[in-house]
Structure formats: C-alpha cells, structure tokens
C-alpha cells in the first residue's frame, strides 16, 4: 500500500512522517516515530491508555488515523516534562504512588493535563468524570484522583493556570 506523507506538530516540533492510511495515529506514533509513551490497551476506545491531545482535545489515538494528523498539533506524554524536569502533575503521581504497572499512566497524565488546562479547580467528582475514559487495573483510582487534586492545588498556588503543570 502506498504511503502518505504527513506533516504535523508533535510536542512542539514540526515532524514529517510516512504512514499507510490504515495505520492508527497510535501505530504511527509508536512504530514510525518511536514515541512509545502512548500505550496500546484495548484498541476499542475503552481503556484510554493511548490518549493524546490533538489540537488541545484528548482523543484515543487508536481511534484516529495517522493520516488525519496532517496539520494538527499533537501532544503526547513525552512532551509533559520540560528539559528533563517532570511536570507538577507527574511529580504528584510519584508522590502519591499513583501508578503500579504504569501502562495506564501516560493516558491518565494526558487526560488530567487536559482537565487542569481547562479547569484549574476541579472537584473530586469532576476529576473522576474527566478520567472516566481511562482505566487502571492496579491502583483502584483513589491515588490517581488524589494526585490530580494535589496537582491542581499546587498549580493554583503557583498561579500557573496554563501549563497543567510545568
């Protein structure tokens, strides 16, 4: 099958890549661009392990085609840290032991980043709603929710409302 040339912005950098139309964005991120942070869980949009931001909106990258990335701005978990310094949210995940096997973590980080960018003062219910599309089979969610609420409090006290967390 003929490949298509796609140009997109990924984690702030302009990137060109070749992909087959049948390949998902997740496949192209992992297998073509070697950005393996986004994980493959269910391939049906249920688990959220492959969540990335496309033009600021969270999407399951397994349910989007790589060719659709043309001209889009894509953010993956690899872009959350700044020059090796973890974001506030990432640090809160570590402090709260919000991860065990880690497969779901990149998706949770992206969904929570998207929430905090829009709502820097979410209630626990709002956090749980925003994370309903991300499944974790290890932690039981409480530690993840706590990390997001802690990060929100920190970001608010720092007066940094935009970076979910840098």
């Amino acid at each position, binding site marked *: *099958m003929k490949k*298509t040339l796609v140009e997109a912005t990924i984690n702030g950098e302009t990137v060109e890549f070749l992909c*087959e*139309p*049948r390949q*998902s964005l997740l496949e192209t991120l992992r297998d073509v661009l070697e950005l393996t942070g986004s994980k493959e869980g269910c*391939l*049906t*949009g*249920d688990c*959220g392990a492959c*969540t990335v931001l*496309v033009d600021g*909106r*969270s*999407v*399951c990258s*397994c*349910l*989007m*085609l790589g*060719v*659709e990335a*043309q001209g889009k701005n894509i953010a993956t978990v690899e872009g959350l840290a700044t020059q090796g310094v973890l974001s506030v949210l990432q640090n809160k995940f570590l402090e709260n032991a919000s991860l065990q096997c880690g497969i779901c973590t990149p998706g949770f980080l992206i*969904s929570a980043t*998207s929430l905090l960018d829009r709502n820097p003062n979410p209630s626990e219910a709002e956090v749980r*709603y*925003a994370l*309903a*599309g*991300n499944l974790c089979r290890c932690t039981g969610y409480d530690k993840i929710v706590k990390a997001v609420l802690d990060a929100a409090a920190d970001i608010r006290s720092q007066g940094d409302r935009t970076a979910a967390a840098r």
Partner: protein
Amino acid sequence: MHAINYEAPTTLDQAIDILKTHGENARPFCGGTDILIQLRAGVRRTGHLVDIKKIKELHALSFDAKKGLRLGAAVPCIEIHESDVMRRHYPGLTEAAHLIGSLQIQNRASVGGNLCNGSPAADTTPALIAVGARARIVGPTGEREVPVESFVVSPGRTVLRPGELLVELLIPAPAPHTSDAYLRFIPRNEMDIAVVGVGASVTLDGDKVKAARIGLGAVAPTPLLESKAAAGLVGKKLDDAALEAAGLAVSEICKPIDDMRGTIDFRVHIAAVLTRRVLTIAAERAKKA
C-alpha cells in the same frame, strides 16, 4: 486492519463525487469511533474512507428562532455540550451527546455519525427523534430529507444509498413552553451502552400538555418514534395517572432483545419507568422555557 484508501475532500461536491465513484466500496468517515473498531473486527469492510471533517458545511451549528437548528453531521459531541444555544434550546439532545463514551470519544464522535452507525442503542437518536429532527441527505442525483425516526432501517443499516452523505440535521425551533430531556439506563455511572434510552419533548399550555414526542432506544431493532403515549397526553395535566398511562403505552410497543445487558421483561419495565421520568423532567424544563 485491511488496506484502505483515505481521502479528505474539502467540498461537498468533491465528497459526493468520490462516494459516487467508489459506490458500495466507500464509506464516509468522521470521528472514527465506531467505524475503525468495526473495520478491525471485520464487521464492516470498505476500500475507501472519505473523511468529511474538512467540509465546512458539515460543521454548521446555527440556531434561528424561526428556522430552528442546523447541526452539521461532523460536529463533535463535545461542541454540542459546550454550546450555550444547545444547552438552552435542546437540553435533552445536549445531555444525550454528553453521555456517549468518555471525553476522548465525545471529542471525536459526532451526532451525525452516531445516527449513521445505525445502532438501535444509539444515545442521541431517541433524543433527535424527540425534538423532531430531519436528516438532510445529499447524493449524486440531488438531495432529500428523511425524518430521523425513518433513518435507521435495521441494526447497522440506514436509508443512505451508495454515494449519499448525511450533511446535517435540521431541528425545528422549540415552540413556546417546550423543552426536552433524555435518560438512559446503564448499570454503571459512565461509559456504557444504553440498556434502554428514552428521549421526550413536551410543549405545555398552562398546566396541560399541548404536544409531546417520545423517542425510544434499545427496545427494538431500530430507534422508534412512539406516538400513542404522546398523543394520549395531549390536553391532559401531567399527573401520576397520565404518566402511568404513557409508560404503559410505551411498554406495549417495545420489542427488545434478551441479552447480557438486560432481559426482555427488564427492558420493557425500564422503558416505562424512564418514560415517566423523562416526561416529568421535560415538562419541568418546559415551564421555564
């Protein structure tokens, strides 16, 4: 997934041309949240995905007090929820769009795609039926309008012929003291497929019902417009007796399947319960509308 071609036309004419050229071997592609899963599972096959998201006309979301609402087929569910116009004039349709899957799904999936997927359990279809939506379809030989209750012909199949595209949903402006509501039953809080879904629109004249429409999901091979219960409410107060009668009339037309998500008896019972509740919510909203 098998090999496919991908095209992303920027005009409606181009899209129709491509769809016409490939006929049954092409499918319109929007949010991808159903079709990509179906292609991977081998439930559907297609040689050409025609991405309709770059066509401006399919992103319309405009309300006119006389002409009503134009909702482009490619508008993602999240934009409906974020729209003040939608929340004010069509709260039931808005809540149906906000119930579909996760935020990740709502950021991609469209109401038009939900309809074209043809599921009997689609959340937004009963809500569209309740508000009297018509589907504007454009094809190689011209255009036509189909009431949403006639759009799905069997599970997964619609009235769309090869070459045709759903362009937009046209919804009348609500009459004074009219509002709508949608409820579904699922055993979880979020992220599930409706065991039963009921949408209703109610117009009040003082404390009496002037008009009502009820849309039903997951109780028959296709989403249904219920007319007997709705007609029975006209001229009556929405009291317990009227709600009981409406629920009973709804349960009489339900022909659901038995599956792991619900038995026939359970679904019929729940359809009546949700009908009473959804009519009550719609009427409460209509008082303030």
